[in-house]
């Protein structure tokens, strides 16, 4: 029994490996946008993003003076483009550590297709917005006929149950006619 522990530990480590490597991964796409007096460098950690998974991103705000960076706020949302049958999703954004003008955020979209990451910045130098195109991919599609087969499979079980209940009813009737089924009174609970 004890010999199995190292193998189990190794299996656990192997399972954790993708998560560890994903966490260690840096941004894979970096874009710079200009929003009035501010410069925004947006780093994406996945491109394309995937449905149902967090798309992590960093935003580093630059300005000509440090004063313009004080009390800067950032909001963002993933807005579906025309042809993407989805709702807008707001991103969660927080300050990244102590550094002024550095933010990190994430957004989770539920539908594949084209989006734009709409980032709005407000600060002493005014309020402006920038857009960054996003592509959201989906897991491999299953054929529609197969999906319907799975979806309607319980109906088959229900039909079989109904058929069996008919013979059960016949047995109940026999028992009822010989015993105290209480079925003979025409009216009453």
């Amino acid at each position, binding site marked *: 029994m004890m010999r199995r522990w190292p193998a189990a530990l190794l299996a656990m480590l192997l399972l954790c490996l993708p998560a560890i490597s994903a966490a260690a991964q840096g941004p894979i796409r970096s874009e710079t946008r200009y929003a009035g007096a501010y410069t925004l460098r947006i780093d994406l950690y996945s491109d394309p993003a995937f449905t149902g998974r967090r798309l992590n991103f960093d935003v580093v705000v630059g300005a000509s003076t440090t004063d313009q960076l004080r009390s800067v706020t950032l909001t963002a949302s993933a807005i579906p483009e025309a042809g993407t049958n989805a709702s807008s999703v707001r991103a969660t954004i927080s300050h990244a550590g102590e550094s002024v003008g550095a933010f990190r955020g994430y957004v989770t979209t539920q539908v594949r297709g084209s989006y734009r990451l709409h980032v709005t910045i407000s600060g002493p130098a005014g309020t402006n917005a920038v857009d960054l195109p996003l592509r959201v991919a989906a897991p491999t599609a299953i054929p529609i006929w197969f999906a319907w087969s*799975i979806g309607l499979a319980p109906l088959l079980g229900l039909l079989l149950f109904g058929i069996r209940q008919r013979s059960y009813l016949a047995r*109940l009737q026999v028992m009822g006619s010989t015993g105290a089924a209480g079925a003979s009174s025409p009216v009453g609970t």
Partner: protein
Amino acid sequence: MVVSAPTQATTGARDHPFTGEWRFRLFAAAALVSMQTLAAVGLGWDIQWHRWLGRDAFLTPPHLIIYTGVIGAGLICITVVLVETGRYWRRVPGVDRTSTVSLLGVFHAPLGFVLAGFGALTMALAAPLDNYWHQLYGVDVTLWSPFHMMGLIGAGIAYLGAAYALASELVRSRRDGRAGRRVMIFGWPGIALGALFALTGLLRLVRVLMEPSIETFPTWQLGPVEVLTSPIGLTLAVVLTSMAAVVMLRKPGAATLMTVMAALFTATVTLLAPIAVRIVGDASGYTYRLPGHPQINWIQVLLPFAYVLPAIAVDVAYLAELRRWRRVRASLVAGLAGSLPMTAIATILTLDGISSTEAALRMLPASSNDLPPQPAFRAIALGALVALAVGAYAGRAGEQLGRILRLNTR
């Protein structure tokens, strides 16, 4: 609410050796129905949520309510199956082959809980699959998608299970001489009302299931033939459940009361759901998919009461026929009597739904922003004929379901 004092028969029943077992089952059945009701409230809210806000995440507040209900119902079923199995093997009085069904030769539990457990399991399995489907194909174009159907079929099985669970307690109570009269509400035994409410689940579910047939897909093309669909589905549901109700209780007004309960519940949820969406939507700063704010649709609120009329027809026709003791004829006549008003109502609803509401446009994808065309007269006539035939059959099937519910002790 009028709750009467325990009767003499009740006092006598306290000393019955099976009383503890019956109380446990009754409590579990009531808890099961409560959890299913919670899920139904969540579903009503979720439909409005999808309509007004779309689908931005899996764990939205209505989804949380639905799955709390589903998981709660599932856990209740698992608990009952395990407890009853233990009692069966320990030969506890009242737990034997006459009060349980065997599952895989090992587990023994009341049929209703086994059924409801399978229903909850089906719904739980449908949830991740449905999420995956949405990731692939977007927010709802229609309720009629594979894994919505899977979830709704699971809900149907679960509701049927709850009706079995409560009805079997009513049978036992009747045989014990109490006839469920321990708790009386407006002259109706509490267990009977519970069983009727459990049956309303099936009716409410089919009403939800048939919504797309009123708003977006009024006809089905079956080869060369086009058929109006909503009268068929709605007639099947109303007549089946009404017949089951009146045969299960053999009491005048049972079918009518069942549909009134279904209508009151549905109307309340339909009334409150847009308000809940608006409160959460405004507070959380959501962007609405449609212009304006969520509003109460009074036609949708009052609509469920239209199903009372066919139930009255079933009640009157069946009880009138029953006194002559011709079961098959009684069920067919009552089925037809219920189908006539239901077919007419469903047809009018569908035609009105197409011509005068914006609902169809709301649910269709932007690429096909057209209202469905008015169905041809042939499609309407054929739909009505099929609905009458289905109604007659539903009368027969409902009568058989009602008899099982009236006799089953397992």
